[in-house]
């Protein structure tokens, strides 16, 4: 394709990306360098049904004047990035010098909100992605072999978890795993433990979230694999059949190598998606035991007070850096394959 044609072909989407992705990222970055202006407090008399008393209140006039002078807030540099709710440099330094063993240090580290969230986010990413790829592949292979008349309805059934909005899907499951829900009661019956509750322990909640993640993401892997399966060349397969290769051998030596780049693509997208996990945490009311980086951003912007734009901006930047780290190995690999193929 001539460069000129490519440019005009790419221009609209490039512009949209710049406007709706690039600029917001830059603006979040600037916001993350600032904190709110100082709040000027004053003592006033407050009267309510329980009586009158003198209490502290924000001096709105003085504070809004400060706000007008500095609409972005006070410049704080990278201060927000280093504070306790983010990278917590001071706390880590202190923990490093005060803790007697590695286990104690890890305990303190994973008690800090950012690292706690990072641990869950990474666990979720790496526990969900491999099963999604494997399951998606198996489902695609199976559906590829069933008769044409059944294919349509089966495919619809399989991609249903992806169609259902994550929040709704997780809420439905949340009610089903309740101690009195169909799944929760069955599990109690199977393990013969009337006190077993999937919602009460952190480990079981994490496992529930991961299983939900696999359930929700598998259709995506299936759709991509299924499309790719249609492009597998028939000649080598027929040749292999004539040579007496079993079904397993055909899949192992012809289909899998052919689908390899597609698998890389799925892993890439899955890692990226799962790194931003949020909805199941809300749906399963799991905020207490499982927090992700996206949940931290959500919490900063929807807590019961002024929105913490600086803090949310800093977490967003750290998330972007995290995604970049996560994707680098896969991207390098793809790049190498791309080069060797040429």
């Amino acid at each position, binding site marked *: 394709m001539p460069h000129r044609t490519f440019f005009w072909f790419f221009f609209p989407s490039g512009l949209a990306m710049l406007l709706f992705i690039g600029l917001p990222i830059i603006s979040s970055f600037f916001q993350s360098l600032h*904190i*709110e*202006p*100082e*709040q000027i*407090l004053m003592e*006033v*008399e*407050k*009267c*309510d*049904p*329980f*009586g*009158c008393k003198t*209490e*502290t*209140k*924000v001096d*709105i006039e003085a504070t*809004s004047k400060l706000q007008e002078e500095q609409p972005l*807030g*006070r410049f*704080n540099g990278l201060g*927000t990035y280093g*504070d*306790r*709710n983010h990278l917590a440099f001071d*706390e880590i330094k202190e923990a490093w010098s005060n803790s007697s063993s590695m286990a104690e240090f890890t305990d303190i580290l994973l*008690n800090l*909100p950012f690292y706690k969230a990072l641990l869950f986010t990474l666990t979720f990413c790496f526990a969900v992605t491999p099963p999604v790829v494997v399951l998606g592949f198996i489902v695609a292979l199976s559906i590829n072999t069933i008769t044409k008349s059944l294919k349509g309805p089966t495919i619809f059934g399989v991609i249903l978890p992806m169609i259902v909005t994550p929040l709704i899907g997780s809420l439905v499951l949340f009610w089903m795993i*309740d*101690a009195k829900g169909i799944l929760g009661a069955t599990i109690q019956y199977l393990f013969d433990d*009337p*006190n077993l*509750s999937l*919602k*009460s*322990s*952190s480990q079981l909640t994490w496992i529930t979230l991961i299983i939900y993640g696999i359930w929700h993401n598998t259709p995506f892997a299936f759709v991509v694999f299924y499309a790719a399966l249609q492009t597998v060349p028939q000649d080598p397969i027929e040749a292999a059949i004539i040579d007496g290769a079993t079904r397993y051998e055909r899949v192992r030596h012809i289909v899998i190598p052919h689908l390899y780049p597609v698998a890389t693509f799925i892993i890439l997208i899955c890692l990226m998606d799962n790194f931003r996990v949020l909805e199941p945490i809300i749906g*399963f*009311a*799991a*905020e*207490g*035991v499982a*927090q992700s980086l996206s949940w931290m951003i959500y*919490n900063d*912007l*929807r*807590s*019961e*007070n*002024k*929105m*913490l734009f*600086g*803090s949310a901006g800093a977490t967003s930047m750290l998330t972007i850096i995290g995604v970049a780290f996560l994707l680098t190995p896969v991207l390098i690999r793809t790049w190498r394959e791309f080069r060797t193929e040429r």
Partner: protein
Amino acid sequence: MKKLLIALLFSFVSTGAYADGHSPCGVTDGTIKILANEFTTYRIFMDEVKSCAGDGADFSVTHSVDHNKLQVAALSANPAEFSAKLVTNGSITTLMNDNLIRPLDDLVAKYGSALQDNQKIVIDGKIYAIAFMANAQHLWYRESILNDLGIAVPSTYEEVIAAAEKIKASGKMANPYAGAFKSGWNLGQEFVNMYLGHGGDFFKAGTAEVSVNNDKGVAALNMLKRLTEVSNPDFLTQDTNAVKEEWESGNVALMHVWNSGAASLLDDEGDQMIKADTRLANSPTVGGGSKPATTLWWDGFGIATNTSDANAEASFRALLGAATSTEMANANPNATIWLIDGYTPGDTAGPVVDAANRGATPYPSLPYMALLHGALSTELVEFLQGNESAEKALADVEAAYVAKATEQGFL
């Protein structure tokens, strides 16, 4: 506190006559969009607001348990997403901090002749909200279960735990106690109650410097832990509405929830056996304290700053009509404690009046209280799960608060 008592006493004798002036109802134009919490009493109130607004105005109301999380974003926009917000002494400070609700003095002068003085929330000489009900959390119990086991109605949390353990041991119920321990606002509120019950102060006097990591904080946390041990193991996912469902399913014999819960717990829906067996009791004290471990709340409404004067007036009139409706209050005497002129309290008002009487603290209306409540919401979970000590949990709360308060410019 005295004012509330006086108001309640007065309401027995007052005539509730409407003074002259503009009648608030029958709004002819304007848009009324209200954001409110979700519980039965608010639904009753909103029905009245709607009928007061009449057909002339464009009326809509959004009920959400997440109202506090929505309010700042929704009212900061200009024009604001909502023209009015139902507020409490907890949520009003956040709106005041950002100047998101407007003074109502001129509107009160025009339409508010039927208002009682204690309905006016006056801050620095200006009326910023109109209160219409008072609320508090207190104990509820199942009379037949306590009677069967010969348990007296608990008046302290130590007795609550002893009672719950006795019920558990009898095999009648596996998890006899329930409280709204859902991680988030509810869990923070449970700590606030318990800490105040121990006589604690959240901040060093006159400053935004937090101080909860002390003996009283540890005692409060340990008491919460013991309560969760006699609660449903899913306690971290149960908010007030979920606790009420547990109650109506007959799984719980003791609970500490809002007085306004009577509106749904004592209505004609659900198991009437359980309803007939449901009793209200005063909020218990804890750790030998004299104050009940609960907080006093008023609920009222505020009008958005960032809305047009016409919409503000329309919204004010409709809400005021309900907030002065003696008929609504007396038709639903048990829905809550109405602060409305001419209201005769029902038989469920007792525990709130008792709490006020015994010196329960109103929920602190400090500009930085919401930040501390937020820190409590998330940092106490690990302690309740047994993964961390009380001191560590409270140190985490303080550290989380300091980081947020610094970013907000309070420290």
